């Protein structure tokens, strides 16, 4: 680790103990979404559109309903028409994405669902549902969707953010813009101006566990849901909206989650399972197969991005102009807004114009994916920055250091940065031996950097002290990246008891206070702050109980190393065990709750160094060395911080070299399996070396910033810059497959 400040003497924070969920997972005892089985449970199957764009003329469910063992069949008409009820547009989109009513907008869009006594019967019944379609012309990319006279997905979509508002609908949902200074002046001050155009494909989060949900509806209108998600409170809210019921009628229990990366912050199966359970009177399980995950759940956007940047011979960036169009999939809501805010945020550029468009097309609705929007934007800008540095013969780290945002820099999206650690990540790379390691034949080296906001939001926690002096820490934040260990480490530090004496638990929506989704790299910061607050309330209570025991005022008692001590040492210390054992005599059980809307979010930066070897005969790019430096603020659990850093890099390498959605001429996905959608595996990669930079966030009790997302921002540009270094060719279209590399090499030799 690259420490910028000394560890202030923590006993547990910053250590690497055994993870609390590890044993259950390696012994197969952990309960994931598909693992639950209830008495009398039925198996559900979803009927999906084979067409990318079509009007639903009729749905005949009679054949399916007549099959022996089929207990329920539902279609869009079994759900409230939110549009007719005047609901908010975003809620209508959520409902229509869960099950289509009039039109299907992508291949895989839900049109019906069945529940039957066996899985095989459910599949047969799904095939027996007859849907009649009027096939409509489709658009799959931003280029097609933004073309004149393009077929419209939504006949009433008027572009927001344009003045004056258009008088005709289009597939462009909104426009965003950020600008400062005078572009003409800025480019006039530049000695070198480089302009490039980039394209990226939709890529999936690739979580190993498919979506799964079990619902059990009661006769009184209540229902229990078990599902793997990044936020069971959010699942409750979305499901209630789609069903048209009060949130209080639904109880959602978080299953263990086998990866999310943003893609499990939205609903797909939950309202269908509840409705099938209500119709059949029995519990219903719905589990997607991998094909469905690819065809029907949100990847992140495909994009087209144009970047023009200017630099002086001294290495000062003078101007930037960025144009971006992001695929939203079937409904508005691509991450182009965040892309526009992050694209040049890492640098202090006096003159800029950033313009972005959110564009619907006939693909699955996009979902969040680690630092949504930032990776594609960084691929473009960090590639151009690499070219600018080469053009003035300046070291790629030095050019970034010369322009890096620091505390007080006015970010391109508006406010001034508080204390941030971008410079420290750049220096960590520069000082690492990898930066000067010798390169072999056909090898090249690339640098790229990235920025992400991180988030705060709402969290709750409860801390119970058990009779034997151990503690249970209860939160409502599903653990997708090690948050249980982080919660336990902070609680151990606060209470002064061993980490092993803390049991961290993720409770259901009726057992703990509200928690926003596990996303935005927010849980260790926000839920962690709630845990710290609850622990401090417990300690206050423990001091009061010790004071009562000693018949002194509470200010005569301090809490040190897990025990109450009299300030003048006149009393023998009272351990947490002793106080817990006699809690009935001093006021009853020891427990405290804390809830908060977290403030003091600390932004995250990552700088990465990539060495590749490019085979000039096959075009295959092999990553031979990879180093990532990231500002964690404070690494509560270094093992998990490194896991997040490595995971982001590996997903970025897949995005950069292999992964893409491939569609046929009818708009059907051709590669919906892990055989044909090639994600990197361990044997493809070298060890991803980590340098944890710690520039503590002054607004958090332990200095946490959040680490889950920014690691995926730099890799694609780092790869492209390394390929350029190795071969001399600049690739601007992701993924950088061997075919594209070979074509570029052939063009170069011509």
């Amino acid at each position, binding site marked *: 680790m690259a420490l910028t400040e000394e560890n202030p003497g923590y006993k547990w924070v910053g250590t690497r103990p055994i993870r609390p969920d590890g044993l259950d997972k390696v012994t197969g005892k952990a309960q994931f979404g598909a693992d639950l089985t209830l008495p009398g449970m039925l198996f559900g199957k979803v009927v999906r559109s084979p067409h990318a764009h079509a009007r639903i003329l009729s749905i005949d469910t009679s054949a399916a309903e007549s099959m022996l063992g089929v207990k329920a069949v539902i279609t869009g008409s079994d759900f409230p028409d939110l549009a007719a009820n005047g609901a908010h547009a975003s809620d209508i989109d959520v409902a229509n994405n869960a099950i289509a009513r009039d039109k299907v907008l992508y291949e895989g869009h839900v049109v019906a669902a069945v529940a039957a006594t066996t899985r095989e019967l459910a599949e047969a019944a799904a095939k027996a549902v007859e849907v009649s379609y009027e096939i409509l012309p489709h658009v799959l990319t931003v280029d097609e969707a933004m073309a004149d006279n393009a077929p419209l997905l939504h006949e009433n979509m008027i572009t927001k953010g344009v003045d004056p508002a258009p008088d005709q609908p289009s597939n462009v949902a909104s426009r965003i813009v950020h600008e400062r200074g005078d572009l003409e002046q800025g480019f006039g001050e530049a000695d070198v101006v480089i302009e490039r155009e980039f394209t990226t494909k939709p890529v999936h989060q690739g979580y190993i566990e498919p979506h799964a949900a079990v619902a059990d509806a009661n006769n009184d209108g209540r229902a229990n849901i078990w599902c793997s998600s990044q936020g069971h409170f959010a699942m409750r809210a979305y499901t209630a909206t789609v069903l048209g019921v009060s949130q209080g009628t639904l109880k959602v229990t978080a299953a263990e989650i086998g990866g999310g990366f943003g893609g499990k912050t939205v609903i797909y199966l939950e309202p269908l399972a509840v409705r099938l359970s209500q119709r059949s009177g029995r519990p219903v399980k719905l589990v997607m197969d991998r094909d469905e995950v690819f065809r029907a759940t949100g990847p992140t956007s495909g994009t087209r991005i144009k970047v023009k940047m200017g630099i002086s011979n001294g290495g000062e960036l003078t101007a930037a102009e960025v144009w971006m169009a992001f695929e939203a999939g079937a409904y508005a809501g691509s991450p182009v807004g965040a892309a526009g805010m992050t694209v040049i945020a890492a640098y202090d550029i006096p003159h800029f114009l950033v313009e972005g468009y959110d564009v619907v097309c006939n693909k699955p609705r996009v979902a969040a994916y680690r630092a949504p929007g930032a990776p594609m934007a960084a691929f473009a800008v960090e590639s151009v920055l690499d070219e600018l540095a080469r053009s003035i013969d300046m070291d790629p780290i030095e050019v970034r250091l010369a322009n890096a945002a620091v505390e007080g820099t006015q970010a391109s999206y508006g406010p001034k940065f508080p204390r941030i650690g971008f410079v420290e990540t750049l220096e960590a790379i520069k000082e690492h031996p990898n930066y000067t390691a010798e390169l072999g034949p056909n090898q090249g080296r690339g640098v790229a950097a990235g920025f992400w906001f991180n988030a705060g939001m709402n969290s709750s926690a409860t801390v119970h002290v058990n009779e034997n002096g151990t503690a249970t820490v209860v939160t409502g934040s599903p653990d997708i990246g090690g948050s249980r260990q982080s919660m336990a480490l902070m609680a151990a530090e606060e209470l002064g008891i061993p980490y092993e004496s803390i049991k961290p638990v993720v409770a259901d929506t009726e057992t703990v206070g509200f928690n926003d989704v596990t*996303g935005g790299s927010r849980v260790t910061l926000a839920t962690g702050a709630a845990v710290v607050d609850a622990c401090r309330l417990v300690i206050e209570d423990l001091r009061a109980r010790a004071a009562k025991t000693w018949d002194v005022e509470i200010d005569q008692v301090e809490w040190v190393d897990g025990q109450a001590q009299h300030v003048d040492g006149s009393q023998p210390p009272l351990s947490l065990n002793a106080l817990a054992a006699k809690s009935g005599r001093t006021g009853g059980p020891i427990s405290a709750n804390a809830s908060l809307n977290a403030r003091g979010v600390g932004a995250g930066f990552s700088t990465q160094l990539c060495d590749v070897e490019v085979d000039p005969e096959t075009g295959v790019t092999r990553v031979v060395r990879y180093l990532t430096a990231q500002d964690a603020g404070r690494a509560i659990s270094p093992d998990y911080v490194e896991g997040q850093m490595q995971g982001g890099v590996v997903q970025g390498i897949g995005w950069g070299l292999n992964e893409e959605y491939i569609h046929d001429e009818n708009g059907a996905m051709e590669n919906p399996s892990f055989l044909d959608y090639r994600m990197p595996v361990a044997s493809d990669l070298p060890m991803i070396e980590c340098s944890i930079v710690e520039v503590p966030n002054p*607004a958090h009790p332990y200095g946490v910033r959040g680490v889950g997302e920014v690691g995926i921002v730099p890799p694609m540009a780092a790869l492209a810059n390394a390929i350029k270094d190795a071969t001399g060719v600049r690739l601007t279209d992701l993924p950088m497959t061997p075919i594209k590399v070979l074509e570029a090499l052939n063009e170069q030799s011509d």
Partner: protein
Amino acid sequence: MAQVYFSAGLRDLTGGVAQVDVQASNVRRLIAALDEMFPGIGERLSEASSVAIDGEILTDAEYESVPDQAEVHFLDILQGG
């Protein structure tokens, strides 16, 4: 007086004005004051914005205090992964 800055995407509602000074004790009152200056901007700011006060980005910030001389920016709602 707080210094309120409008992103380029909001300036269609401010007639091109990029910055104004506003006296308000909290974000809710600040938005109300802005809506009086620029009718219609209140709805946009309430529905689709985070707010940054002196560099800190806040969500659900309706009742957040706005210190005198604070620098305030309204931002798009962000989605994390």
